């Protein structure tokens, strides 16, 4: 387990160093993720020991947002002032995103494969 964890932390550090060193707009951990995808493509997969640590971390990923999410308690006044506007933006923008993504892919698959069901 320690091997896999160390492996991930090295990619995380690499991402952090590159992000800050080159003043990239991409956050360090995200850059680390992209580097690890590139590594997996080159190596045609990742070591089993790394894979096991990844699935362990991802299994409890939701728990890891909680400490930051509790910070909402500091935003009371903001929520009172802009809460309804926030809700409207959230609802409408999510509907638009779903429809645009779904309809675009639907049209593209139709054009290539008149019966798109062959892939399901």
């Amino acid at each position, binding site marked *: 387990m320690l091997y896999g964890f160390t492996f991930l932390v090295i990619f995380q550090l690499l991402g952090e160093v590159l992000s800050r060193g080159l003043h990239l707009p991409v956050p360090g*951990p995200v850059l680390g993720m992209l580097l690890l995808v590139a590594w997996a493509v080159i190596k045609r997969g990742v070591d089993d020991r790394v894979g096991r640590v990844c699935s362990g971390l991802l299994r409890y990923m939701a728990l890891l947002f909680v400490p930051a999410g509790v910070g909402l308690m500091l935003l009371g006044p903001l929520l009172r002032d802009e809460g309804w506007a*926030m809700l409207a933006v959230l609802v409408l*923008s999510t509907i638009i995103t779903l429809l645009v*993504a779904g309809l*675009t892919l639907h049209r593209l698959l139709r054009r290539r494969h008149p019966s798109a069901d062959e892939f399901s």
Partner: protein
Amino acid sequence: MSFANPLDSQAMLLALQTAPFLWLGVTAGCFLLAERLYARTRHFPLLHPVLVSIVLIVAILRLCGVPYQSYFSGAQLFHWLLGTATVALAVPLFDNLQRVRALLWPLLIALLIGGLAGMLSALALGKLFGLSPAVLVSFVPKSVTTPIAMALSQHAGGLPALTANVVILTGIFGAMIAVPLLSLFGVRSDIAQGFALGIAAHGVGTARAMQISPTAGAFAGLAMGLNGVLTSLTLALLLAFWPA
């Protein structure tokens, strides 16, 4: 010497207050409780474990009069692991990429158009409804998976705590309406429904897609990963050119 009272309640209280892992334990405990509630209610969307944990912990902190900073300094071990877990997202992204190679081009085009529609609609609607600048920035990455969205929000001058909650609510709302909404517009294939769920509603949407079929789930997982990448690469650019 007197052994009359071996239970020194004051010392015990002090130990609880100063132990750095008290809030770590409370966070983990609340999360386990929330997960159990979620399973008991057969995954009722609004009882998402993250939301329930946050509500429980805020209530406990308010009740005990503990400021957020003291809580966070105790619970931050979990927060630190978030960066490492973000790197771990590479593995499912790579696996899903392998599975759908044949359709890569249409998927990439739909990703580009759908992902940009998500960010631009948030910016335009945010302006229309008069959101303040920091709130607006917090909303732009709302469709991507929480760790990436929080990192992006922080990087761009938003409020990561707000982003975390907005992202989860977006996921819940998207997962609830996706199938009826898309079916209404004639989008009925597993592939397109799954992909739209992944683009708009990240991990919560992917879990919903898994219920449709494993195919829908795989396309949702891929869409979620790719949209995280697209949003990371374009968000700063978009904000730079957006008339504030």
